[in-house]
């Protein structure tokens, strides 16, 4: 059947069960609580002065008595440098464990080697906020019988609370740890910054292994992962490719197109009515999105406006803005470049936050709810402002939901920045492959060829027009783009569902079908 935003979603999905349909971005939250019961976290015990140290990762994994059908979790703070996930899955596969549910907070190209374990039945189910690289392509082609479930960062916390993701084992890579398992990502040779996504895993997994390449004397400070949740500690030579983990500071793009879009987005912010003292702000690390921060910084200095806090994925560029006194605080759930790590350690106003505080819809107010302005990207956007950030133009999985729908739902002003077409592929389209973020949570689209305001925000449109900005109807823009690039031959799908897109409240907003060969 068609759900409320017109997406064709079956009422029953093989391997998943009856579909809980998406009913609107805030509908379920209006009640004030969640109907689904939460499961209790495990109660564990240890006698005094027992050693948690294991010589190898293999020894630690064996001690947790892994079994068929288990769920194992990882975090993706090591970016494309991570080798812990692949090594751990190899160990489990060599032990002959089958039917594993993999619950990594995200999957990247670096995880390509585990594809063979999807093919041989070692891994049969995946929960993740995003899948890039070979795995995404293989999943889209139907390598798994059970559809993968794509959640948002906030939605992952909810799914763990409710036991939909029931973690048997969490393997937490840290850049520094002590013998009891207190651990951090903010120093050590592989420093990567915040450990925000791993926080919920440590509380809920039946067993927790901390793995590090830098053992420090007890106690490891600052404490992001705390010893009371940790079963075993392993020291290894390397948790991954340091050059890809400990990346230098992210530079502002030099692409004229991205800069042009960013400049227009900054003008939109300036004239939105929300560019006032005390505003809170979030930008991504990608080209145009991060470049918006550069122009906003200039505008803040010029108009002597000081903001409240910066949220989310954090780059060194926004750390500089904190240090310049343009904002009071940074709440950091994930550091996009390792240059951020030292700030996390030294600046008491740069605060690491867990994913639950960042974006879980079911608590007394996550921080995305307090957000004024967020700037997001898009792979595709349709005429109702619904956004796809998970599937590419060929219909295969290659992106990440991440915090996209969480922040869009929370912010007073959600701006999507993207070129109107990339290469020859249209981004603004009549019909998009997958909806991750519903249009009702997106306020304005900024492209190089004009600004489109969601009709649900007439005052915003009025403000931008008054400021002389190039505001146009999204339908016009879509038609113009189609005239430039030509008509795209539509992708054909089979009936097989290979992926499910869960909205942050746990309802199903869309499904991803197998691409016809």
């Amino acid at each position: 059947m068609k759900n409320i935003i017109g997406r064709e979603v079956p009422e029953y999905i093989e391997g998943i069960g009856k579909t809980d349909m998406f009913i609107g971005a805030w509908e379920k939250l209006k009640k004030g609580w969640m109907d689904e019961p939460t499961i209790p976290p495990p109660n564990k015990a240890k006698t005094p002065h027992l050693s948690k140290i294991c010589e190898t990762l293999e020894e630690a994994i064996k001690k947790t008595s892994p079994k068929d059908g288990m769920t194992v979790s990882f975090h993706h703070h090591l970016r494309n440098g991570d080798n812990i996930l692949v090594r751990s899955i190899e160990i489990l596969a060599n032990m002959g464990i089958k039917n594993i549910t993999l619950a990594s907070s995200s999957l990247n190209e670096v995880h390509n080697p585990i594809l063979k374990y999807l093919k041989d039945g070692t891994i049969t189910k995946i929960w993740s906020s995003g899948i890039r690289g070979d795995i995404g392509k293989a999943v889209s082609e139907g390598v798994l019988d059970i559809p993968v479930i794509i959640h948002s960062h906030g939605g992952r916390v909810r799914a763990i609370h409710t036991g939909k993701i029931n973690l048997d084992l969490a393997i937490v890579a840290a850049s520094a740890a002590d013998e009891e398992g207190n651990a951090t990502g903010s120093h050590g040779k592989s420093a990567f910054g915040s450990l925000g996504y791993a926080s919920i895993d440590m509380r809920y997994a039946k067993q927790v292994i901390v793995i590090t390449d830098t053992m420090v004397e007890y106690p490891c400070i600052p404490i992001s992962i705390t010893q009371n949740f940790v079963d075993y500690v392993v020291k290894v030579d390397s948790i991954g490719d340091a050059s890809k983990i400990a990346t230098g500071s992210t530079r502002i793009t030099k692409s004229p197109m991205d800069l042009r879009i960013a400049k227009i987005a900054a003008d939109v912010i300036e004239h939105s009515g929300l560019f006032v003292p005390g505003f809170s702000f979030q930008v991504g690390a990608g080209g145009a999105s991060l470049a918006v921060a550069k122009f906003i910084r200039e505008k803040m200095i010029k108009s002597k406006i000081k903001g409240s806090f910066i949220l989310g994925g954090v780059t060194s560029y926004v750390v500089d803005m904190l240090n310049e006194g343009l904002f009071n605080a940074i709440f950091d759930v994930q550091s996009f470049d390792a240059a951020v790590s030292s700030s996390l350690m030294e600046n008491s106003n740069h605060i690491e936050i867990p994913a639950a505080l960042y974006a879980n819809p079911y608590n007394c107010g996550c921080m995305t709810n307090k957000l004024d302005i967020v700037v997001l990207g898009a792979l595709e956007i349709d005429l109702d402002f619904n956004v796809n950030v998970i599937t590419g133009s060929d219909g295969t999985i290659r992106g990440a939901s991440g915090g996209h729908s969480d922040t869009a739902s929370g912010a007073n002003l959600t701006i999507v920045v993207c070129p109107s077409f990339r290469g020859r592929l249209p981004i603004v389209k009549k019909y998009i492959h997958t909806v991750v973020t519903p249009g009702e949570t997106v306020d304005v689209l900024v492209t190089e060829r004009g600004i489109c305001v969601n009709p649900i925000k007439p005052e915003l449109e009025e403000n931008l027009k008054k400021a002389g900005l190039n505001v146009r109807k999204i339908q016009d823009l879509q038609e113009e783009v189609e005239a430039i690039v030509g008509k795209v031959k539509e992708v054909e799908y089979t009936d097989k569902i290979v992926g499910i897109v869960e909205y942050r409240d746990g309802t199903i907003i869309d499904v991803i079908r197998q691409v016809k060969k």
Partner: protein
Amino acid sequence: MKIIKKAQSGSFESSDIIVLIEPVVEKSGRNIEIDSSVMLEFGDAIAKLILDKLDEYNITDIHLIVKDKGALEPTINARLETAIMRACDLQKGTL
């Protein structure tokens, strides 16, 4: 029109297309190979554009290879035209 020599136009840059043309023996027909970064989405459209252009120049025998990196229609047309003029030795005002 008759293809009399090997010719090439365009580049491997994004939004551009390389066109390679080779002469073939008479009455051997059109041998067209298309490779594109947007094959799935625009493969058919590119093929149609090429055939239209060959019709326009009345070329029946040709070996033509294109490698496309997402070029828009005017670019594809321009590169085809350039390669054809060069292959027929009709190009003007260039070295």
